[in-house]
């Protein structure tokens, strides 16, 4: 039986590509040998769009973020920004470009100089501002206001006098002050309370659209990811396991790991669901399992999963998944028989999961 070809959907004009990473790999040298933190990852950041990068701790999210900024450069792969290969730039040209690529880090307190006041911390970021004649005092006040910290109340405080959430907002104000082209937010709202989080998410989204930023939003919180991103890429032990439009992926995840992440989200009024994960800990990235790197925790793993590395395959227009037995059937012709068998088998398995 040949499955019917899906109808051709006219795709809307995509936003221009700002940053493209191809075949990105990051290997860290460790005492115990090479650690493959990121393996052959492709990512595209477009103007006015936000791509969310999701994955658990140690999956390589921060390694990707740093590799994009060449801090340090990736072990393999290319990164282009507005068509320019970053590896081809002179150190000087790279230094000139850097402020246009801004990053907000995970740990707000250690990223801020403890001796500076909030006012100075934001003002010093203006050294990288493209317009030297900018009214510094006004910009400092505007950026702080934008993250919900009135200058009058917070301008003279130092990082130690801020709560964790307040410190993170100062870091975000600093990044925005440099008028970036690409904004990478690495777990930037994880430490914020929901009201501050909502303010910052709305702000990131608005600025991405209004200022034509290309944003990479790193998070493990799918609720936050849903609110802020257009597309999502799910990372598992250094490999992309699922990618596609955020709403579609969250409505029907195709990879068992994405489904587990979704089930683990705590939400008021949502009973604690079963994640379906086997009770194994994430394996060491120094010694990843053969074949599918998720197989030690996957309830659907079979011997093929131990043997063959699953490749990213299309399950719907713009959606790819790397799994031998995805939760959605793989699109026409690509290994359809196996995939659909798999999907059917898993449906019964999912519904038959014991609840806790």
């Amino acid at each position, binding site marked *: 039986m040949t499955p019917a070809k899906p109808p051709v959907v006219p795709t809307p004009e995509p936003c221009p590509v700002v940053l493209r990473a191809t075949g990105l790999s990051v290997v860290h040298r460790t005492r115990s040998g090479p650690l493959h933190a990121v393996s052959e990852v492709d990512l595209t950041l477009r103007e006015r769009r936000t791509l969310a990068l999701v994955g658990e701790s140690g999956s390589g999210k921060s390694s990707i973020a740093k590799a994009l900024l060449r801090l340090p450069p990736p072990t393999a792969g290319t990164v282009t920004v507005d068509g320019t290969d970053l590896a081809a730039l002179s150190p000087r040209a790279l230094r000139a470009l850097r402020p246009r690529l801004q990053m907000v880090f995970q740990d707000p307190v250690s990223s801020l100089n403890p001796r500076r006041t909030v006012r100075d911390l934001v003002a010093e970021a203006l050294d990288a501002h493209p317009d030297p004649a900018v009214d510094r005092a006004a910009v400092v006040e505007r950026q702080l206001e934008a993250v919900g910290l009135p200058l009058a109340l917070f301008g003279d405080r130092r990082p130690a006098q801020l709560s964790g*959430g307040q410190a993170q907002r100062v870091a975000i104000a600093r990044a925005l002050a440099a008028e970036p082209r690409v904004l990478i937010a690495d777990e930037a709202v994880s430490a914020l309370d929901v009201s501050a*989080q909502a303010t910052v998410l709305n702000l990131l989204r608005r600025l991405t659209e209004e200022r034509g930023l290309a944003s990479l939003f790193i998070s493990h919180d799918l609720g*936050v990811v849903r609110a802020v991103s257009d597309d999502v890429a799910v990372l598992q032990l250094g490999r992309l396991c699922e990618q596609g439009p955020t709403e579609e992926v969250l409505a029907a995840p195709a990879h068992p790991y994405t489904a587990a992440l979704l089930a683990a989200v705590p939400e008021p009024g949502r009973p604690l669901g079963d994640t379906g994960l086997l009770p194994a800990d994430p394996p060491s990235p120094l010694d990843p399992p053969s074949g599918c790197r998720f197989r030690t925790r996957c309830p659907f793993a079979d011997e093929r999963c131990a043997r063959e590395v699953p490749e990213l395959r299309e399950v719907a227009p713009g959606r790819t998944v790397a799994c031998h037995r995805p939760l959605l059937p793989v699109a026409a012709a690509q290994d359809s028989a196996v995939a659909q068998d798999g999907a059917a088998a898993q449906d019964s398995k999912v519904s038959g999961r014991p609840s806790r």
Partner: protein
Amino acid sequence: MTSPVLEVRSLDTTLHTPDGRTLHVLHGIDLSIDAGECLGVVGESGSGKSVLARTVLGVHPRATRATATGQVLLNGEDLLTAAPRRRAELLGTGVAMVHQDPMTSLNPVVRIADQVTESLTNRRRMRRRERLRTAAELLAAVDVPDPARRARAYPHELSGGLRQRVGIAAALAGSPALLLADEPTTALDVTVQRTVLDLLDRHRGTRGLATLLITHDIGLLYGRARRIAVMYGGRIVETGPTEAVTEAPAHPYTAALLRSVPRVTGPLRRVLPAVAGSPPDLSRPAVGCPFAPRCERAEAVCSTEAPPLHRAGDGHTAACHFPLTLPIGPASASVSKAQETV
């Protein structure tokens, strides 16, 4: 009737910072936690959650002087008035803390075994082999795989989730009666968060540990904390059974907080309804309701008079002139601050 493990009565905490500022952070905090019970404390950044935990422990950042008035009763003994030696003894044996970031609470150059057994070795001089064995047992109890090897490791050799389990093992080692967990899973991803919270629930159940679980994520308390206390501007503005507070919030701040939670279910909201405005300035004396400048329901009376405490039968209370769900009209006239313990 069993008496609560922790009972806080009319607690006010004022911080005096080295640069000469005075911040009145906590106002009239009343709460109590029974053995085996989890009380969730939720509130925005700067609402005073950590200062509350630190006041119970009597530990504040260096160079910060704190004055606390009211009572902090641990099994009936007031920590605020106890003599320093007695206080240290009560805290050392009775209270343990799990921090937001295990990396800051663990010493990077000390082996896991020595940190996990710290509260034990202080009292009983253990031999090294015995200490390693005890540490491995403590680590196994918090589901650390390969505990004997991990006991010999240093903190940076472990993942964030394992480090937090080590932090929990260290906290549980001294068999405390009360566990203060300040954002214990904020730095962890959801799957690991789930296992760490399940672990805390399990030990709470088997050891009858009273737990104060501080978080800014109200969703996380659902299905875990029996009761929630919502903090705003250093006050407990609403308290009650978790279901009542999350399903039928009475205080406008709680309702706003619940609205701004980004969700994976339900209709997609591109713009999250954030609470406009900023948290109250704690260096200024508050008149009326601290939420008034940001409240949609505020009327003139809100900025001049302290809101009364409204109650429902199930211990659900809210300090508000115009609560959303509780019976209109305070249970007792002109209660100016929470008198009932949470």
